[in-house]
């Protein structure tokens, strides 16, 4: 039986390193801002639509579409091919679990201490049963801290269309420190809508950890140059994007 670390490490070759914030790097999601801007266009757009976005996003890997990581993150949710679903599910949760356990301390340090709860962004689609990421989390040690705090709200969230009403909390919150995890981060609309709702209802969202942050190198010249640069640094689980920048994170 393979271990979580073995499965995660076997995926190193399909992951792309996430740069620490700095010049030419979005200070929130670590993506590619337009020249002269501190945040990328999508973080700018999404932040203007919700009241309490979370300023700390710690993607595990970047990816483009199409790519093998995109294929895995897309199809681990599909139940049409059970063997694929199982294998990709194990890969997704291994990436998340191994990354979190490896970088637990540096994330804690960056967010000013431990968190009480790990939760996920609810699925935007109707499906039978629970979200596959939840099923996957249940297979590893993260389950001890995991609690599904959110359900879908009255407003449908779509690309860039974030809203405080996209999700509802399932129980009253009383200052719990929450780590929000999600599989993909494209514009951040879903994750930031979820973060904002949790914060408005009394939670303290310390960070968002998406497994993959989508990059479109064809978006503009800056994105193309950004992609070229990040691909020069081989991905390793020994590094994360917040280790080098812990004094630089500013509140939004």
């Amino acid at each position, binding site marked *: 039986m393979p271990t979580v670390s073995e499965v995660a490490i076997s995926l190193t070759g399909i992951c792309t390193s996430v740069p620490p914030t700095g010049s030419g790097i979005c200070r929130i999601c670590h993506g590619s801002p337009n020249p002269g801007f501190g945040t990328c266009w999508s973080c700018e757009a999404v932040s203007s639509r919700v009241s309490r976005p979370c300023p700390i996003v710690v993607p595990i890997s970047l990816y483009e579409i199409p790519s093998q990581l995109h294929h895995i993150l897309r199809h681990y949710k599909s139940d049409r091919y059970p*063997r694929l679903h199982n294998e990709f599910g*194990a890969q997704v949760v291994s990436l998340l679990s191994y990354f979190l356990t490896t970088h637990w301390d540096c994330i804690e340090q960056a967010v000013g201490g431990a968190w009480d709860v790990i939760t996920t962004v609810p699925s935007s689609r109707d499906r039978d049963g629970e979200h596959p990421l939840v099923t996957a989390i249940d297979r590893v040690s993260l389950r001890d801290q995991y609690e599904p705090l959110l359900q879908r709200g009255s407003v449908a969230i779509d690309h860039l269309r974030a809203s405080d009403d996209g999700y509802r909390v399932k129980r009253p919150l009383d200052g719990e420190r929450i780590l929000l995890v999600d599989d993909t981060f494209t514009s951040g609309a879903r994750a930031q809508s979820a973060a904002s709702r949790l914060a408005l209802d009394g939670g303290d969202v310390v960070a968002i950890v998406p497994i993959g942050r989508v990059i479109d190198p064809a978006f503009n010249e800056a994105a193309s140059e950004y992609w070229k640069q990040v691909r020069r640094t081989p991905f390793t689980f020994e590094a994360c994007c917040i280790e080098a920048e812990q004094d630089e994170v500013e509140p939004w």
Partner: protein
Amino acid sequence: MTDLREQAALLALTEASPRPWHEVATLAEDVGSATAVADGSATVYDEAGSQLLQALSERTTTDMVERWSESIVDVLARVPGTHLLTVLDDEYPENLRKVFNHPPFLFVRGNLVAEDSRSVAVVGTRRASPEGRKRAHELAVQLAGRGVTVISGMAAGIDSNAHAGALDGGGRTIAVMGTGIDRIYPRENAELSEQIVNHGALISQFWPGSPPRGSNFPLRNVVTSGIAIGTVVVEANATSGAKMQARLALEHGKRVLLMEDLVMQEEWAQRYSKRRGAQVVGSVDDILDVLDKERAVPTALQLF
């Protein structure tokens, strides 16, 4: 196996697609039906999928589907022992389905069996040295003897020797063609291809009748990498298609196994050997170790 109507609809969608073929494969898999894409009755939830669905349903006519029905019947009758596998079939090779850019259909001459999932691609240069040919042959004999299906591209040089070695070792071998299923290339491999059909399969992702176009070979390499668990590069210089396959295999998250002699001789192989997913191997045992580890499907996980 899907019926002729679904197969014909899938080939018509592929012909009509403004996007790369593998996107048609993914869309058909998401929907679970090619006819539902062609007639516009399907729904998908992602934006890119919706756009492609709309384009395909606008461009695919019933005449095209009808024409493909006739063409499929014609080619299957013309090339004995051939069948058509699509992404909608459960028999579509599982290793291949796992890679992001898998093709929507494969013409298969011969048979694919479940055991072929335990397979390695053995690849290298067409202009192989006598030692390289010998190494490829010996390696394939031993792999075949250990029950591993040998995948290669039926090109001259290393590929042909890998196929021949698998056959001499009494095992199975699959040739991934860069042409249509009805065109053997290079012609010198006509006899070898007949033997492969009897002990494995020829497979082609291209239209019947397709000539060996330069643009086919990178797509062929995607399938050669995708259908195997890992790729062994025996002998190849920096401009060889085998080096490209090594790159594709790493992009697929597959293992790339570089023979010791190759790493000693080629600067590119030395560089590749340091990349995550690549490994230098000296023996069949080294290859089998990697293969069987990769093959273990992690349906259950152990904590650290």
